[in-house]
């Protein structure tokens, strides 16, 4: 089961501190997009925004990407 949106794991993924390995282009495009957005603006507000979007993404695609979800579940 995915951690709640307020769980710190989402900010760790947003900032790249918790790397995700994937062979799925859709997931890797998200991780790349997170990296670009974080490098452009490292404010806490932006980190939270990226984290929210990342949570939204995995909530939507939870059934498609079990290998990646398994890396997130803590």
């Amino acid at each position, binding site marked *: 089961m995915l951690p709640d949106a307020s769980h710190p794991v989402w900010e760790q993924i947003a900032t790249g501190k918790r790397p995700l390995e994937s062979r799925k282009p859709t*997931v890797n495009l998200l991780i790349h997009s997170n990296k670009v957005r974080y490098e452009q603006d490292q404010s806490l507000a932006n980190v939270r925004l990226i984290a929210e979007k990342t949570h939204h993404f995995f909530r939507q695609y939870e059934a498609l990407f079990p290998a990646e979800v398994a890396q997130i579940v803590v």
Partner: protein
Amino acid sequence: MPAPISATLQTVPAVQAAIATGESLFLAGSRSALSQLPRGNWVGGTISYFMTGEGGLQAEDRIFVTRIPAFAIDVRAEDYGPQELARINGDAPAHGFTFLVLPAGTQVHRHFAEQAPSLDGFLLRPVVGWVTGVPVDRIGLDSPAVFNGRTGAILEERCAALHVELPPSKMADLDIVNIFESADGEVVRFDETGFHVSQCRIGGKPANLADYISENKISTEFPLVGDYNGSAINVSFQKVDPVARTVDLFAPVFPDVDYRFAKSVDDYEAAFVRQIAAEGGEPYFSCNCILNYLYGHLEGKRTGSITGPITFGEIAHQLLNQTMVRLYLRDI
């Protein structure tokens, strides 16, 4: 008995009949073939090259048909200008996907290519499709176009979308098949987003890309490969001008991506068969790049069991080059 009208190459009368029964369709065909179709819930784009069960072929009088499945909850055809691209994801269903066709070489094509990754809804509203074209011997003479079957419009400066809402038991899953991988050369970086480039940094040092390609005798048959967290996304070469010292590309490069030149591929057909076998599964929709068809001499050859239009660019969330795109509708 006629062939089932689902992801197959069909005659114009067969497609006319399908539209008349109210089918929702995503179509690929020549301008003359698509122009013969009645209004209905369909969108299409101009292309004359197809990957079929019998191999790659060119046809002006047939249409590649992707039938929207009966379980779709809602299907809507729309079109958008270059300043309206943000509306695509806004109009897309919360659960489903969008088929999109973009006319090659237009402002709407360029804007989508440059802006898609930064649009609201990127990745959350799956967009899949391709860039329309013309027969290669008509490039510069004829104009690529898209068709909005709902309005009857033939559009050369707008893109057309078919928004498909899925039931909760189904989910769209986009995948790409890229037969290219990075060679072991130095990283190429760009300071700006664009299709037309000159200056870059290679191995961290300022360089001119056109000069570097000429001096190192690099084949532009093979793309630049961008590294997106381990997924390879290609940018293909359109033209290198050694006098102007510029390079034109079929997709934009982005400043936040590490690029490398690709390893050469000798046998495209075998490479595709290998990759498709590795991933497995029959997609609901697929398209492949015209450059693979031309450079790989795929006319008359098969790419595994995969069929679909052969296109001037592919879309899986964002614009791709020299890539096969696959859309699966998964049971969840």
